[in-house]
């Protein structure tokens, strides 16, 4: 079915865009790469009166380095992450995660801001943001605020974004040099959203784990961090099997629901398998970095 009729504006500046969004409130919907919004429109699951195309807002394409972090503009495309263009190369985790998003067509158009604002529970970038303890920069006509990723994702496809607000950038604290990382995911078919994805970042200190972080997608309404497992791994030495044992010893602190692609039980199982695989590979990479 074609979309329900709507008006279309493509403002030339961020200020104009924010003014439009303030004026039209709940009636307006920003459009970035359109890879999630356009299907919602044609399925008539979204029926905005006005679509505000962000494509001309060049200020949202910037990538900046700040002390200890990378700030990635909302309109940076998945393809740029995948290729590690320019400063993005400073965070190769983005490269690995972005390569797993959808297919080449989706990556050519989809944007960082769109993915994070859309907040699909199975999406990779929100999980990366959680794994790195990142934050999002939100702007409205009234001003700017910065929200931690942990507070930004509120529920399934629901975020802390208020009407009239745009996500302008994501902030990614860079892991210490020598950190290892990995993304492991499982999907039913090539090019699909993951059923479950695991993002792991491991920092070592003399052969023992100084800090391990794991974020999971697809196991609940928002990306989950595994605090108890992370704590248990601290100080653990990484001879073979240690990670698998640590994962197997305690139930993961997740409460997935079943759907047509996987039962709750199978998601829980996949979460454990992928967590172990991601942590092992991240630890191995960290180990190599030390040598």
């Amino acid at each position, binding site marked *: 079915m074609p979309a329900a009729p709507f008006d279309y504006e493509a403002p030339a500046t961020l200020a104009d865009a924010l003014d439009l969004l303030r004026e039209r409130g709940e009636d307006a919907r920003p459009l970035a790469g359109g890879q999630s919004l356009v299907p919602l429109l044609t399925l008539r699951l979204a029926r905005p009166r006005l679509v505000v195309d962000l494509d001309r807002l060049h200020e949202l394409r910037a990538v900046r380095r700040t002390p200890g972090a990378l700030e990635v503009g909302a309109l940076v495309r998945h393809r740029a992450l995948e290729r590690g263009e320019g400063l993005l190369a400073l965070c190769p985790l983005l490269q690995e995660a972005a390569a797993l998003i959808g297919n080449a067509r989706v990556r050519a158009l989809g944007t960082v801001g769109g993915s994070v604002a859309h907040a699909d529970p199975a999406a990779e970038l929100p999980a990366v943001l959680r794994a790195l303890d990142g934050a999002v920069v939100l702007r409205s006509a009234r001003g700017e605020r910065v929200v931690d990723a942990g507070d930004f994702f509120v529920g399934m496809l629901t975020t802390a974004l208020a009407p009239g607000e745009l996500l302008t950038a994501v902030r990614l604290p860079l892991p210490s040099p020598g950190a290892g990382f990995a993304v492991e995911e499982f999907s*039913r*078919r090539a090019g*699909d959203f993951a059923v479950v994805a695991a993002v792991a970042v491991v920092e070592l200190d003399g052969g023992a784990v100084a800090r391990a972080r794991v974020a999971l997608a697809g196991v609940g309404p928002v990306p989950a961090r595994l605090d108890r497992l992370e704590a248990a791994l601290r100080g653990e030495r990484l001879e073979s099997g240690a990670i698998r044992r640590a994962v197997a010893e305690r139930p993961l602190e997740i409460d997935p629901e079943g759907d047509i692609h996987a039962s709750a*039980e199978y998601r829980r199982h996949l979460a454990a398998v992928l967590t172990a695989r991601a942590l092992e590979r991240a630890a191995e990479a960290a180990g190599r970095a030390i040598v």
Partner: protein
Amino acid sequence: MAESPAATRERLRVVGRRLPRHDARDKVLARTLYAADWQMPGMLEGAVLRSPYPAARITRIDTSRAAACPGVAAVLTARDVPHNILWTDVPGQTSVVGPLRARVQVLADDQVRYQGEAVALVAAETREIADRALELIDVAYEAQPGVFTTEDALRPDAPRVHEEGNVLATWRVRCGDADTALARAHAVVEQTYRCGLIDHAYLEPEAGVAWIDADGVVVVRASTQVIEHFRDVADVLGLPHNKVRVIGPYVGGGFGGKEDVTVEVFLGLLAYRTGRPVRMVWSRQESLLARPKRHPFTLRYRTGAARDGTLLAHRIELTADAGAYAYLSALVLLYATVTAAGPYRVPHVAVDARAVYTNNPPTSAMRGFGAMQMVLGYESQIDQIARRLGLDPVEVRRRSALRRGDRLPVGQALDTHVAVAEAAERAWAALGPPRAPSSPRHRVGRGLACNLQPYGRLVWLRDWASAWVGLEADGSVVVRCGVPDVGGGQASSLCQIAAEALGVEPDRVTVHIADSALTPLAGTTTATRQLYMSGNAVLVAATQLHDEVRRVAARLLETPVEQVALADGAATAGPERRVLLADVVKECARLGVPRSHLGVYHAPAGDPVDLERGGGRVFPDYTFGAHAVEVEVDVDTGAASVRRHVACHDVGRAINPQSVEGQVQGGAVMGLGYGLMEEIIVDRGVNLTTSFASYLIPSALDVPDVEPIIIESGDGKGPFAARGIGEPPIGPPAAAIANAVEDAVGVRITDLPITPEKIARALGLLSGG
């Protein structure tokens, strides 16, 4: 056939060549006008209002607000349809249910029986207005209890989907004494299998345009496998059959989903009511929601074998979910019943099959048509027998493989070559040496599955096809044939056949297809019958023409007719004597010799047979094949992926080997999707899979290169001894994968699709139940 296959191949000039299809270039350059591409001045857009409930009474429909909407030309409900019922007849049913005159309502009147059933039609100036008008139609539904599984439908107190009761059709086969043979068998395997509800998922959803011609004829140009639906359109409108014409453009995939009426009747109604051209294009969601799908079956097999693995007996119970309307269910069930013992000699067979109404989406024709669902049953059973007895999978099949002259359990003797054992051997051997797993967490396994699939329709339908072949004054050739081309190269193959028979290059042949007013009727592009039927009809016409032209050429060349050959657009008698075809045609005109012929081909015909008492011929013939696959299973996630796939079929003769390989590869990939991931999920009648994000079909990245092996036995009932290959290759993959998974990780999956979760559960990786 007196001539050896090799000698025939040697003699043929055009048949057997890998020719690019004449329609390929236009398709690639987007110049082909598919059904939805057709535009006409003043054309309206049509749309369908569909029931959100799977079982409900309609207590009121108010169309006044929709009709008053500016730009709306017509709003139709059941009351506006002159004859609101389409009938399907299934002659020869040996059933307790009695001869079946099954109904499908055009538009629901007081009762809806499945979610997505059509309730009202709209035609409007634009698609937007039509969609808006649909929202303005006010329908009051009173939800009713429905039945959503065949088990529930068969309970005595179950709500009735139709007044006559929930059993729509039954078939029984009795051959020998299965129970006694099972009691005496050395090894008995008993298992229940389930195969799922799946969609055709063609590239091109249902679409068409209808208009009223100057002479009052209702013309429907629609994506269809059956232009003969002009009769249904006429019956519904209450018009004489000769006042409706159906034109079939090139179709973007049918697979049986465009065998029943789709948009044709709706378009006819809207065009007739408004007097204006109307277009209707269904969305993917609509197609996935509301079109008839493949029958899910429950298959219970008890199979007995001797110590050496020879098959002795099958007792088989089949239950098919027919959904809410009969469509072709009774026939699909018959195909299942006839082929349930597989391509093997089994002396004692008992089959009890029934199709049951539910409030699920209707099910009807889909590539393989009941016969393909059986492969999971008989090939899983034979594999387990081999495993039980420690036999090689090829050896166990070779022991019982059908041979020419053997009889099927329904009593039909096989009177052409039967390549089962050869196909199994060649497919298995082509896998080559096993390959190493890609990680320590993977296991590799192999599986084999053979099949048989009828080509051509039931002999008691007395099938026939006609085609017209003519020579123009310049020696170019015209073929007219009512065959719809659904993308399988149906039209192209006819060019090759006519070119071969008349000694011209295929580019000298133009083929006009699929117009019920202008092309001789050739019947449906279904049942693996078009190359067989319309190919034979073209060959009959072209051969008559050839003989006539040759006689005239002999006069011109002043030689005995036996010395004249038609080749390269000329008639020759030895190297010296030659006359151009164009000149022979002119001479024919001068002499009053016809330069065209109407060829009619009649398939072997017979009366309905009693399957319980000896039976006899049911189908003209069968195509046999075998697939071998190598899978790799991830022992942590349960995911199985197919790494190699060899597909071997005897096609008698490959008219165009490239088209044959295309059919084999396409069918195999479709079978892989069926085996591994495709599933329409219906929760109490509500379809949860109405987009390609939820209904998963394999992409190119999910399947290996399918390696075709084409056997040309030189024996078959089609033109030049060809056998049909449209449906057969979809049969074996699912069973081959199930067999390979057991080989890899030792668990038997009996329910399709074989998802990672099912394997993980069978491996004991999931704790709870």
